[in-house]
């Protein structure tokens, strides 16, 4: 079970080379297959997640959640997807058409790109960059532009306000997010995600870097625009924020991208702090799925319990609390590391 997926990949490469393809071309075909797999993983995950979110929120709010279509309402998401696909695609006349139409596409592309570096099991990584973490953070910050495009292109004051909030929020939370992860990088001594996983063979980094974990978790919630930091959407204030003018599949793409981001960020959290795919007994790809879903459940729990924070509190919280704390953590980690080396414990 452990090597199912790597074996399949190897068999595919061998078969292609048996057909007379050079090793380079075989790898190229493999890459395309891997991307298709990622798109499949994303789609399946989103279908499960939307169902799960409804069930979890139902559980928290003393409701049943979807329970009509299929066992425990499992097919509800599929029915909703069909509904959204068949809906009229409304493009308001005063919009900036190209920006309005392409914003959701860019958003989903950017979110899927995050998966390139996530180690989804032992040796299961599309590209094992030596700067994988840097790639993840920089691609993750691109989604800001997509939200700005959506808000600007919609030519609607609510959308614009939502987009401006999104930009302000994501830029300010990007910094503590990156700095909190640097503590882990210092201990692991590498930006390569597979190295970081291997470095957690003995002890999870959440135990060595608890402050970094908490800062990362809060900043990640803000990055994902999830409650209590769902300012860009802010249903009760901005009606739907940047998504106000979107309908049908274009709106669904935003939704899809948000959940895709959620999975990616949770998977990164598992990789950086909870030992990635490592774990006893079960195969590695199952371990990362279990850890990712547990982290996502915490995200859902937070969303359905907390009220929304106010915009100015949000900004001051990032700049006045999260940033100093994560910087202090960085300094502390540096001193700690030197001390350990000096004592000869490391």
């Amino acid at each position, binding site marked *: 079970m452990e090597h199912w997926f790597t074996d399949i990949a190897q068999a595919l490469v061998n078969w292609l080379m048996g057909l007379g393809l050079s090793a380079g071309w075989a790898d190229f075909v493999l890459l395309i297959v891997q991307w298709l797999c990622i798109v499949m993983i994303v789609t399946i995950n989103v279908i499960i997640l939307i169902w799960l979110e409804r069930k979890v929120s139902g559980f928290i709010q003393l409701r049943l959640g979807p329970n009509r279509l299929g066992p425990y309402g499992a097919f509800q998401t599929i029915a909703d997807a069909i509904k959204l696909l068949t809906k009229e695609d409304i493009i308001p006349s005063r919009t900036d058409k190209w920006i309005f139409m392409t914003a959701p596409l860019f958003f989903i592309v950017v979110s899927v790109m995050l998966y390139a570096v996530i180690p989804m099991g032992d040796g299961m990584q599309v590209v094992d960059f030596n700067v994988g973490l840097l790639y993840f953070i920089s691609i993750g910050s691109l989604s800001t532009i997509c939200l700005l495009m959506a808000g600007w292109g919609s030519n609607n004051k609510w959308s614009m306000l939502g987009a401006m909030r999104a930009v302000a929020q994501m830029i300010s939370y990007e910094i503590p997010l990156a700095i909190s992860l640097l503590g882990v990088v210092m201990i692991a001594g590498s930006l390569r995600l597979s190295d970081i996983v291997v470095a957690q063979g003995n002890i999870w980094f959440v135990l060595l870097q608890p402050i970094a974990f908490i800062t990362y978790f809060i900043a990640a919630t803000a990055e994902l625009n999830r409650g209590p930091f*769902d300012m860009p959407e802010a249903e*009760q204030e901005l009606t739907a924020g940047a998504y106000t003018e979107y309908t049908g599949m274009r709106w669904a793409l935003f939704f899809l991208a948000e959940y895709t981001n959620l999975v990616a960020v949770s998977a990164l959290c598992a990789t950086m702090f909870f030992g990635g795919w490592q774990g006893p007994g079960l195969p590695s790809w199952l371990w990362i799925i279990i850890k990712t879903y547990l982290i996502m459940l915490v995200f859902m729990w937070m969303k359905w319990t907390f*009220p929304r924070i106010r915009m100015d509190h949000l900004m001051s919280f990032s700049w006045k609390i999260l940033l100093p704390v994560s910087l202090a953590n960085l300094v502390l980690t540096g001193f700690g590391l030197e001390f350990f080396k000096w004592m000869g414990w490391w």
Partner: protein
Amino acid sequence: MLQTDQYIINIGPQHPSTHGGLHVEALMDGENVVDAIVHLGYVHRSIEKIAESRTYPQFVPYASRLDYLASHLPTLGYCQAVEKMMGIEVPERAEYLRVIMAEFSRISSHLIFIGSMAIDLGATTGLIYCLRDRERIMDMFEMTSGQRMIASYMRIGGIAEDVPETFYAAARSFLDDLPQMIDEYNGLITGNEILQCRIKGVGTLSAEDAIAYGVTGPNLRACGIDYDIRKAEPYGIYDRFEFDVPLGTKGDSWNRYIVRLEEIKESARIIEQALDALPQGDIRTKVPRVLKPESGWEIYHRIESSKGELGYYIVADGGNKPYRLHVRAPSFINLMVLPIISRGGKLQDIIANIATLDPVLGESDR
């Protein structure tokens, strides 16, 4: 220097957090509110004009459509106004049942307030918990009047029907569970740090402004002014009950929330006393089928509704229909302070202010 501009943003009439058809025209400078103008009238059903073409008893169901979140209170006010004008005595038992129903209405209205405030601040779960408990009050109303929300239970000269036996147990068990419910709200809503940051010190209304604008009810008491019509000018049999009037200190959104939360407990105290003292007897006096107040008679009667001072001004012209009926709607008057408490705040504060002023648009637009 960057050239910036102020812009107008229309909150409502189609908006998730405007409690009906409220339209707030906000002049914004970025996220900051420069000014807010309240536009009303989207739920106008000309109830005051309808009253002129309905006989006195016929208007009772219309009155319950004023404040549909606490429907016993506006009907109580109307019936008492007519009774006062005609000099009709109400039997003891009916008086007690009226108090019980009115206070249950107040609790249900305040539960909706807490829930809708929570959801307006983004805590969707808070609403569901409050609705769960309000449901039990609605069940009791259904038990007694056959209607859940807009129960026209009050009648001129008494009440429509006696309560069934099952009502007492339901009422007692609700009162027994109430402290536990409030603990739950405290855990989920009151104690939340984010929520406290959102409403503490936000939308502060000074006592002078409150009096100048004629604000009444919990909004006024949140400013620290001890004015409750149940105490100041007791109507019905309210002088027989022992209860406190919760007061705020600062008049901000947080005080308005806490005052209402405390009022739930006080209402529960009143209901408990009324249930204990509930006498047997008639529920309605004999009232002439056609009520014809003499020409020139007029009356102003006011009660403490869940929103504030709810007054009825009725002028009779000798016929069986009022010549003019005016409703002093507390929601309408309380909403007028929205601009002054929202100025200088953030966009999100407007939403919090609307929520904590607790207007019912059906009453304010009439």
